[in-house]
């Protein structure tokens, strides 16, 4: 039985408890991915809900309740350490995804949520197949600021990946690239989205500066956790707005 890392409570009465699971925080959370978990937990509480934060480590039992999942980027050594566990919990993850549980998978975990990763030397490593994407290892990295148009509005962040990802026929992207490389630097797509599962290359981390994405994920998680529609509180996002709009303006100006 797995123990949650933290149980955070709002200052006022609780509107319900959301269980947030961070997949492989030791192996797959380089590049500040922890910031996404921190942001989700803080916003859930600020919206008036309790947040139970679980860290899922390789070999551990998967938490019984999971309303929202977060996974991050890692190095090759980190990825190889989670492969066996990912295979073990694959059935559970597919069922949760099919059931509409919101998930945010960044970079390395985005790739592993796809069909396959094909290495430089042509070795094909199977993924979970939750997102219909295929990634090929390349020798040059795609690095730099990135701006997208998404269903949540403009999104800004920083990409840093050597894998080039191609969407399968009918797979929706997470967004359209306005500045930066995106999935592969050629087709103008970035990330992938199926129902409430989002995979993408946007670090930064993505959620603090793009709170609309965070609240979109939280809304779906709350509905699942409480059976009721999300009742958001009015949060002050002035700093996020400043950080996001200024960075978007800089990147679009540089790309113009």
């Amino acid at each position, binding site marked *: 039985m797995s123990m949650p890392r933290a149980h955070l409570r709002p200052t006022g009465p609780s509107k319900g408890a959301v269980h947030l699971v961070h997949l492989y925080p030791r192996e797959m959370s380089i*590049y*500040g991915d922890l910031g996404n978990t921190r942001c989700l937990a803080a916003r859930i509480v600020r919206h008036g809900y309790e947040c139970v934060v679980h860290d899922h480590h390789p070999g551990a039992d998967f938490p019984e309740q999971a309303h929202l999942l977060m996974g991050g980027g890692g*190095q090759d050594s980190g990825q190889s350490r989670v492969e066996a566990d990912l295979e073990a919990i694959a059935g559970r993850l597919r069922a949760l995804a099919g059931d509409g549980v919101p998930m945010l998978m960044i970079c390395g975990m985005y790739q592993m949520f796809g069909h396959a990763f094909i290495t430089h030397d042509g070795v094909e490593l199977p993924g979970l197949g939750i997102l219909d994407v295929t990634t090929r290892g390349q020798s040059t990295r795609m690095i730099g600021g990135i701006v997208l148009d998404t269903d949540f509005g403009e999104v800004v962040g920083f990409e840093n990946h050597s894998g080039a990802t191609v969407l399968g026929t009918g797979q929706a992207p997470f967004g359209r690239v306005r500045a930066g490389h995106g999935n592969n630097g050629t087709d103008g797509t970035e990330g992938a989205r199926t129902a409430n599962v989002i995979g993408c290359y946007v670090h930064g*981390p993505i959620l603090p500066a793009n709170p609309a994405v965070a609240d979109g994920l939280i809304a779906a998680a709350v509905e699942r956790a409480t059976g009721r529609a999300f009742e958001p509180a009015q949060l002050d996002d002035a700093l996020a707005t400043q950080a996001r709009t200024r960075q978007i303006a800089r990147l679009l100006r540089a790309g113009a």
Partner: protein
Amino acid sequence: MTVPAAEARVWGVLRTTAAILAGKATRYAARLRGGGSAAPGLVAERIDPRLLAHTLSSLPLGVVVVSGTNGKTTTTKMLAAIVRAHGIRVFTNPTGSNFTRGVISAMLPEVSPTGRLAADVAILELDEWHALQFAKVVTPTHALLLNVARDQLDRFAEIDTTARLLATLAAATSSSVVLNRDDAFVARIAAGLPDGVEVRYFGVDPLATDVPALHEADVRFGDELVVPDPTPRDGLLHPQDARDFEIRFGEQAVGPVRLHQRGLAAMINATAATTAAQALLGRDFRPEAAIEALRAVRPPFGRGEVIVVDGQPLELVLVKNPAGFTVALGTYGAEPVPTMIAINDDYADGQDVSWLYDVSFESLRSQGVAMCSGVRGYDMALRLSYDDVPVDAVELDLQAALDRFTAAYPGSPKRLFCTYTAMMSLRRTLAARHGLAQFGEEDA
């Protein structure tokens, strides 16, 4: 057609001479313009790529390379000071210009037109990538490897890659390698070294208590690292209190020492420098000389440097990665003072500000942060909001922010955490107003 050997030799000397003269001329021109420190090196390097090899390989005590993520500048300065205190002439790159070109730029004013350097040993600070490029041209006799932390991942891509750069540098070193026994990425390098290369370690004494964790957790717990028990050639740090410490080599102790620079990180740098000095000097190493040198060495600019502004100390602290920022907050957290944080995202700062989310800012919660600045000042303020740290103001323009910050707290000591280019810019402003040493003119 073959070129006769003598003619080739003459041509080689001429080429070197041309390179040095061209570099010197550029240096002179750059000084007139008040320009950057690496430009003259670039010119000389283009003319004779072997200039470095030619000049440095003739030094009698060899070439020491100091590399790693955090503490290079401070440690290099300490090591050079200790070695100089033994009456040895040291060539070093004190301007923090830690690329190959920077080394050549530093060399130009001290080298004769035939490429002779008036020094016994070179002690050079090089970042991980440039250290490796350097080693392809000049074989280091000694390497001092400090740590591997997440730094500028947009440049080095991955921490494993950075660790491999250091391992390759160590394998190219001819005489001795000094490794951090507390950093798994660095300590592991010993296993891959050729026979005949001496390995020494520095670190915090395992028996010393109340020492916070300083290094990145190594996620590859699969291959358990075994560091050999310390020998009398390994330097171990014994902090006595917040300021005083000694460095023990078996029964022999170097200390007590109190540095100008505060904090555990500086003590560890002193331990690294002293261990490397022993490796370099062997039996000639004198503890009293090392103690005296360490006591006298001033923090390099921007690394805990204190500038007096309107009669109050303003502490300038360079932060560039999660490990460094965490250590800095731990070092200064016990004495809260009005604080400003300036975050830029140029190449030298790291373009991805994600790393700010791998630092805990809770120690600033009670005092709050008076000012966030730099190009990514709003991202910094946003980050602090997620640790419930109150922020009084955001002003992206560095000079305007500095003015508002110093004016708001006239009667109090102050602290300024900043990334590299923000530090360079702020220090230029402070230097113009308060008459500090100019870049490149710092006492060696």
